[in-house]
């Protein structure tokens, strides 16, 4: 037990813990709106599309700089969402196929660039791989600070625009009618999702970060019908998943961080599915008896 506690006394681990808590909270809150707008899988595409952005930045500047990577990831994620919308709007291809195409092609291209870097760069490219599945253990102090501050800002922005987001999610026509800038708000929500993706990729990885946006809010749906409560509960579930994933992968060495966070979130979802106070299976069974 004391060995277990020793792990938490390390300053780096404390930072990782705080970072993963806040990251999980931000993704849970923002994910609630994404879920209700039925954009969960689009967020998955944005996450996968971050990989080529990171690689392009490395190829151009030949240095490992996290802020530069984040800029690259932001650009390609935005290109990905706009491509999905353009495909749906300008061709007969349906939204599900459009998302699938963008996910696989952008990610495939990212892998091409990753292998190109591994073949051709002389510098220290080790660690770019960890963007795929995330590795909390490889984070340095400044990375974690960036995650913490970033997540904090995302939460603040969401809180500031909470009412507006709520209106545009449930009743876009009405929101437009009372003069809310609906397209600006949609764009802002998109930007927040990109924010979660880019600050989360180092810790969770591009493949599974979308799960942190989808699963905690969906679990929260089984406990409440009120959006405000759902967003906060989603945030708490997200924070729990983030922290427990980070701890488990630090305590047991070889375990990848991202998948552990996702499994924690899945466990919370499963328990909510069974015992949730609004739509849980157990409750339904009791009612039927």
């Amino acid at each position, binding site marked *: 037990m004391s060995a277990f506690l020793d792990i938490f006394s390390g300053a780096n681990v404390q930072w990782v813990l705080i970072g993963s808590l806040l990251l999980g909270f931000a993704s849970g809150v923002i994910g609630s709106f994404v879920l209700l707008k*039925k954009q969960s899988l689009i967020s998955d595409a944005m996450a996968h599309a971050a990989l080529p952005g990171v690689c392009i930045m490395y190829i151009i500047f030949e240095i490992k700089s996290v802020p530069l990577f984040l800029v690259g990831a932001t650009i390609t994620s935005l290109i990905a969402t706009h491509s999905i919308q353009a495909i749906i709007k300008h061709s*007969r291809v349906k939204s599900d196929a459009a998302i699938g195409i963008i996910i696989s092609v952008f990610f495939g291209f990212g892998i091409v660039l990753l292998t190109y870097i591994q073949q051709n760069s002389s510098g220290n490219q080790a660690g770019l791989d960890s963007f795929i*599945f995330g590795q909390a253990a490889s984070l340095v102090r400044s990375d974690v600070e960036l995650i913490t501050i970033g997540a904090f800002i995302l939460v603040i922005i969401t809180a500031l625009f909470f009412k507006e987001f709520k209106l545009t999610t449930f009743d876009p026509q009405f929101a437009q009618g009372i003069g809310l800038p609906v397209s600006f708000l949609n764009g802002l929500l998109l930007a927040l999702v990109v924010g979660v993706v880019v600050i989360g990729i180092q810790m969770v990885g591009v493949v599974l970060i979308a799960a942190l946006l989808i699963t905690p809010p969906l679990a929260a749906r089984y406990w409440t019908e009120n959006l405000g409560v759902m967003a906060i509960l989603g945030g708490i579930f997200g924070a729990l998943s983030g922290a427990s994933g980070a701890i488990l992968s630090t305590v047991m060495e070889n375990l990848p961080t991202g*998948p552990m966070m996702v499994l924690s979130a899945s466990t919370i979802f499963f328990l909510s599915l069974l015992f949730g106070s609004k739509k849980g299976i157990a409750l339904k069974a009791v009612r039927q008896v």
Partner: protein
Amino acid sequence: MTYALWIIITGCLVGVTCGVTGSLLVLRKMSMIADAISHTVLLGIVGAFFVSQSLNGIPMLIGAGIVGILTAFFVESLHASGVQSDAAIGVVFTSLFALGVVLISFIGDQVHLDTKHALMGEIAFVPWDTLQVNGVSYGPIAVWMLGSVLILNILLIWLFYKEIKISTFDPQYAKIIGVPIVFVHYLLMTMVSLSTVASFDSVGAILVVAMLIVPGATAYLLTDRFFTLLLISALIGILSAISGYGIAYVWNVSIAGAMASAAGVFFLLAIFLSPKHGYIIRKVRNSRYS
């Protein structure tokens, strides 16, 4: 030369097998199920390894088949219980995939199965892993596996051609005239799982998703006929594999990634240049009538 030839043949077989099966899913607006299954078969492969302690073809196919159908079943059940379909897909596939990835890290270095392999595959090693009978080599195992799954798929499509076609284009009518829709659904899911697992080992999850969705969507832009669509999907799959290999050879990059990128380029070309549904022809038509 035979080395490169085997890789190209493997890529082409993946393109045809996944392209044909996937185009059915694109038509049924179920592309993301393909994405989900091609991630979750990893769990089936790892599970099969834990049970049989080997990476043999048959246990792997069974394990992946089971997990693939389970994925479809979980998504269906969550959707039926009131969860919107995109979120249902998202939760199920990320959970099962994460479980697969975590279980892989328990296997350690005993076998050539790791997370990177799961995503990118190891098509470059395909030619060395040959089928040996009495000391005689009969070509790569992957080619045999893909070939048999392809023949099985073609056989199933041929047998149930009418049922698949009707239930795809007019599910209501299909139900009325007594086509077993649920059976056709799970038949397709089985075909997707088998195609996925046969391809997975050599090309990884990314290329499987790309080959399942992109050729079908590209063909959908080029034709309105069902049978032609299947043929064009297969052709696009082959073209993507060959040109992808060329790109990978010239720049010395990931073969699977390059094939996926090549498929993306073909889709991009079709979206602009398709003589029937392309962006340019639409613009021309609109300006003529307005």
